[in-house]
């Protein structure tokens, strides 16, 4: 079946502009995660959704970052007034959710964001 889909795959934007990154999770997966991966670094947790609610937003780096999820499916990560340090690969993952703990995360191929 279809995996996690992210769009766009690449985004180049000017400093100060806003960007929206989209994630389509695997159908039936109630849990959705956003991570950030900088060049040569590990995965940095940003935010977790269970259904449409976000019980853990602790990883969002600043108030310029926000995310929403609608219909228990598609999620959008928005970065306002982008800065050069926001340049990274943004990865989305989904899983069956907390009712099935131990269920692994399944990742999309990410959006590579470059802020010039």
């Amino acid at each position, binding site marked *: 079946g279809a995996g*996690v889909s992210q769009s766009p795959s690449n985004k180049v934007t000017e400093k100060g502009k806003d960007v929206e990154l989209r994630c389509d999770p695997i159908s039936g997966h109630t*849990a959705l*995660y956003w*991570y950030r991966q900088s060049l040569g*670094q*590990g*995965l940095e*947790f940003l935010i*977790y959704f*269970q259904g449409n609610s976000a*019980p*853990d937003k602790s990883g969002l780096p600043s108030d310029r970052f926000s995310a929403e999820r609608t219909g228990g499916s598609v999620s959008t990560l928005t970065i306002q007034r982008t800065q050069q340090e926001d340049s990274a690969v943004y*990865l989305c*993952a989904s899983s069956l959710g*907390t009712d099935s*703990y*131990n269920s*692994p*995360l*399944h*990742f*999309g*191929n*990410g959006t590579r964001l470059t802020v010039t």
Partner: protein
Amino acid sequence: EDQVTQSPEALRLQEGESSSLNCSYTVSGLRGLFWYRQDPGKGPEFLFTLYSAGEEKEKERLKATLTKKESFLHITAPKPEDSATYLCAVQVPFGGYQKVTFGTGTKLQVIP
């Protein structure tokens, strides 16, 4: 605070030269430990879940093992196509959900 440390950071092997990657962790209430493979320009691809100390899982040339403090990913007679970054992650209960924290990975290069 939950910590996951992977070693070595990078590993270069000759084709056929077996070795092991290490993932050590300090967490409260481990629910599961995951191993992933990540190829350049791709998202991490799920390999294994381990739930309890003593458990082992195998897939082709890879075998993952788990103790109370660490996990090993053993690679037997690797081939160039095994070259990738290998990530481990721990799943722990956090505020009513299962938080997943990743290590920084081991970059494996297998030379023909």
